[in-house]
């Protein structure tokens, strides 16, 4: 059945060649399970995107409603607890896997020429992943979220001279409040995903272009 549908598509779009090129990519024999960590990270990221999209269906980024809407998801929405906890656990999973991936690349020396650029993109990806964690942590608007963000933004504010400016930009004012919540929300669901997907595109393009690094 699938073969037939595929033939039908190919007859019109002539895509078999490209698909083969992309999917039937020969993998050199030295590649082992250690090379899976980047892929695992990416799989987790896709899960984060899917569960995140569904969370936004009920979540409200306003101090009046954020906590109640999260509680509503956990207590009243069918499978809400599952989806929310997948997103929550998954966020830690992404951070863990991205670090394991980084360590693999580091100990294989895979960051060396010609892959320096991809290492740099990787470093930015790491920062984006942590940005997701930091902005997402505030969203439930409970005590832990609130004070973690108070402390986190205050740290950024300890920079000499620019401190106050940085705090005001990060919090949307001197104090944590409605404006902080909406800007963290915007970062978490629009800015960071856009940056992440763009950089992942670059990351994967370079991997394909350069091939996976050779045996140690």
């Amino acid at each position, binding site marked *: 059945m699938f073969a037939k549908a595929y033939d039908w598509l190919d007859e019109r779009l002539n895509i078999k060649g490209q698909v*083969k090129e992309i999917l039937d990519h020969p993998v050199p024999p030295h590649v082992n399970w250690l090379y899976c960590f980047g892929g695992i990270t990416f799989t987790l990221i896709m899960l984060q995107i899917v569960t995140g999209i569904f969370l936004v*269906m009920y979540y409200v980024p306003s101090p009046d409603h954020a906590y109640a809407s999260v509680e509503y998801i956990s207590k009243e929405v069918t499978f809400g607890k599952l989806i929310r906890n997948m997103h929550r656990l998954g966020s830690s999973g992404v951070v863990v896997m991205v670090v394991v991936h980084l360590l693999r690349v580091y100990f294989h020396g895979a960051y060396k020429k010609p892959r320096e650029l991809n290492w740099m993109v990787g470093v930015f990806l790491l920062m984006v992943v942590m940005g997701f964690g930091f902005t997402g942590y505030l969203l439930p608007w409970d005590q832990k979220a609130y004070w973690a963000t108070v402390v986190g933004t205050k740290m950024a504010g300890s920079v000499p001279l620019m401190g106050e400016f940085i705090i005001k930009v990060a919090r949307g004012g001197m104090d944590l409040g409605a404006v902080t919540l909406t800007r963290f929300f915007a970062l978490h669901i629009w800015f960071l995903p856009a940056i992440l997907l763009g950089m992942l595109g670059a990351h994967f393009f370079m991997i394909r272009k350069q091939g996976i690094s050779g045996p140690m």
Partner: protein
Amino acid sequence: MNETSEFHQEPVNGEVGGAPASSEQKQALISEEINRRQFLTTMLGLTGSVIGLSLAVPLTGYALSPAMVKEKTEFVPVGSVTDFKAGEPIKVNYSFRKKDGWVDTEVKKTAWVVKKDDNNITVFSPNCTHLGCGYVWDAPSKQFKCPCHGAVFSMEGEVVAGPPPRPLDRFETKVADGKLLIGKLLEGEG
């Protein structure tokens, strides 16, 4: 017709490492490779489907969640039985608290109370059954009149004139401790 795929030669056994194989060995490798390839493709499809399904079920439930909640209407008081006079319909304002998702709101509504005697009170929805305008009581003619398209209803809610397809909708009612309570809205029949 489609020649591109034929031009595409794929290396069968990886390019790196290993001594050149004899043609017999190559043949054996190719058939083994194809079996392995089929096996892996099937397993990949299977695992993918299991993961996809175990995602699709909770996500669908999550999105359809509101449809699985049974709406239940509770009786709300609209006034004392003695507030109303026989033969004189009165428009009452009443309010009740409602859970709207994660928000607890106060809903304000109105209804028309028509009393014949203490044991015979009807409460009508304030919306005309034509297109939903609010109708008014016309005391001289003892009829309800809708300003929108000229509907006329009797005191019993029957259509006297105009376009409405059915009599006025009415609420379930009950009396407790001298208070009049209304419940579910029942569609007017006729």
